């Protein structure tokens, strides 16, 4: 008896004594190190097009996951917010359209762009929270369409159909950030920041209250929480992430046009989040990686089986349908179920750790 006691006290003592980096799970170490040394063996194309794009789409999708997974609000407007931030960087900063671009330095243009994006996100959010559930999808889809048509028609500010080109990142620290390696680390850095800030907020009082609002708005209101204020604040925070992603997206292709934030891309962001899974912040990045792989290499695969490369949409659509059909919580859901299955004792048909 006494032996067992000392044993257990020693164990808790050990847990407290472990240094901070020992408490980080092994999977984080593996993924982190692989991502950090990736440029040593990956090609420039893979770094810039595959991983850079994955991180960017993952961030925009992460903002949707934050709203959908923790707030229960599926918003299709995130791509428009990202597009708006990209537009604002082009308008306040430098672009090839010198008539409109104001050419302000980056330390003014970028914060301003993010503020405008957050402002837009907050306004859309305050409209969208007046409704619930599937209505939110419809309203945010309509707002996304309105944004697309407005930017296409407006030539004074948004330069209409052609948009802006030549939108380049600033030459900070003497690095050309559009080279593949710097761009890879740039997107990796911001994606990591976004990932951990979502993870942190989900465990902070605000995030817990938001999840409470998702599960039972009436009870949270009775407890004295302002339901709508929490939801609108979630939209504002999601807009910040989407805006950061939008600026990086604009830098990646060096241009922004209405098509970047059209209805198709808006739905693609939802597809990415659903394929990856909306239960944890890593889901959107997994979804984005698969989406980018499909988009980059589907043409070769389709051609090899004798179909024209244009059938990419069909492939994405069928994959999306299959995921929604068989695993509504995406690939993360499949993974969780597999873990559950592995832990199950085949004879007793119950989980081992329940003993």
């Amino acid at each position, binding site marked *: 008896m006494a032996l067992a006691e000392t044993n257990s006290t020693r164990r808790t003592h050990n847990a407290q004594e472990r240094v901070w980096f020992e408490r980080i799970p092994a999977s984080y170490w593996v993924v982190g190190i692989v991502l950090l040394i990736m440029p040593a063996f990956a090609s420039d194309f893979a770094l810039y097009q595959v991983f850079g794009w994955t991180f960017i789409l993952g961030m925009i999708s992460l903002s949707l996951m934050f709203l959908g997974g923790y707030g229960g609000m599926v918003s299709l407007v995130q791509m428009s917010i990202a597009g708006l931030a990209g537009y604002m960087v082009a308008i306040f900063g430098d672009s090839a359209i010198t008539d409109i671009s104001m050419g302000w330095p980056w330390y003014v243009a970028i914060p301003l762009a993010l503020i405008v994006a957050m402002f837009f996100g907050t306004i859309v959010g305050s409209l969208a929270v*007046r409704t619930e559930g599937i209505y939110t*999808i*419809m309203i945010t889809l309509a707002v996304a369409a*309105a944004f697309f048509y407005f930017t296409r028609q407006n030539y004074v500010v948004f330069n209409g159909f052609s948009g802006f080109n030549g939108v380049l990142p600033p030459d900070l620290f003497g690095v050309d950030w559009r080279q593949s390696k710097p761009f890879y680390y740039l997107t990796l850095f911001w994606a990591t920041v976004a990932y951990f800030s979502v993870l942190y907020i989900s465990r902070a009082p605000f995030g817990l209250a938001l999840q409470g609002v998702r599960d039972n708005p009436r009870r949270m209101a009775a407890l004295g929480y302002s339901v709508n204020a929490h939801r609108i604040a979630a939209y504002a925070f999601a807009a910040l992430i989407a805006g950061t992603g939008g600026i990086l997206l604009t830098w990646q292709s060096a241009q922004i046009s209405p098509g970047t934030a059209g209805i198709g891309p808006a739905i693609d962001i939802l597809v990415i989040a659903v394929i990856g899974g909306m239960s944890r912040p890593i889901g959107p990045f997994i979804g984005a990686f698969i989406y980018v792989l499909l988009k980059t290499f589907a043409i070769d695969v389709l051609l090899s089986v004798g179909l024209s490369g244009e059938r990419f949409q069909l492939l994405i*659509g069928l994959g999306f349908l299959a995921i*929604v059909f068989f695993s*509504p919580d995406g690939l993360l859901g499949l993974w969780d179920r597999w873990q559950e299955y592995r832990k199950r004792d085949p004879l007793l048909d119950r989980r081992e750790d329940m003993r």
Partner: protein
Amino acid sequence: MRALASRHPGWTIVILLAVAALIWLIFAIWPKGLVDVIGRKKVFLNALFNGITLGGLYFLVASGFTLIFGLMRNVNLAHGSLYLLGGYIGYFVASSTGYWLLAFPVAFVLVAAVGVLMQIFIFRRMEGQDLRQTLVTIGISIVMADLMLWGVGGDFYNITPPSWLSGPMETLLVTGVKRSSGDLIYLKYPVVRVVIFLASVVIGIAMWLILNRTQIGMMIRAGVDDRDMLSATGARIQLVFVGVFAFGAGLAGIAGVVGGTFQSVAPGEDIRFLLASLVVVIVGGMGSITGAALGALLIGLAEQFGSVYFPTYAVVLTFLIMVLVLAFRPQGLMGRS
């Protein structure tokens, strides 16, 4: 009407004045000062008529959408694809047989059959999971759009109406006075648009009558209010679901033929009409047929007047209406809170 007048006397006066002004604008010969300010009367009348007939088309698409939503809580985001499918079917039937009228029943039946398959094989399996159903409809719309692009190609198709419907007809509305002779000039308007608008009015009234005066309509209305209670009373609710889904999809198919005759059938129209019906239904109120009619009329008029008087922002105008309605009356004009 009297209740409205006693409750909101100010608004009643405003509405009556607006109606009086509209009637005057339609029937009077415009004085020169007015023409200088807002342009010729012919332009105004054409925009008005185009708006009303476009509203008829929007009503055909949106009424099916709102009916399906009202009964099954299913936001069918593949509704635009059903519209486009109907348009293609109508085009091939009309151009291969030469009978324009034949396109309507064929499009209705075939698209309704697609709707039945969707309801039986997909939506019935995930009943009560609103979000999942909506996601599935997004997937279906992506797949259908690409399949149609694959099968038919990206060309524009126009469904030509038969000769007895083509060409303009004289109306009794005066657009102006000939300066030389002093004769009155009457407005000419395409026959086919008038006929199709009348047909959509007839369909709308028939739907209203079926919903409000028949046993099936009673069952559907009861299902909209409380479908669990309805199935508990022994109504075969799955049959009602399939029927309503088929009917709504079929209406979208018919609307596709109408849209192909008014404008054209092409990839991308599916998204356009999906958005139009979304906006119509949000403005008019979810699940309400009268709301869909009112919203369709409003959006059709806004789009046409917008494209005449502020051409750059015509599309944005319709979304502005939606935002205003959402801000002041989130359940829609005719919706119940």
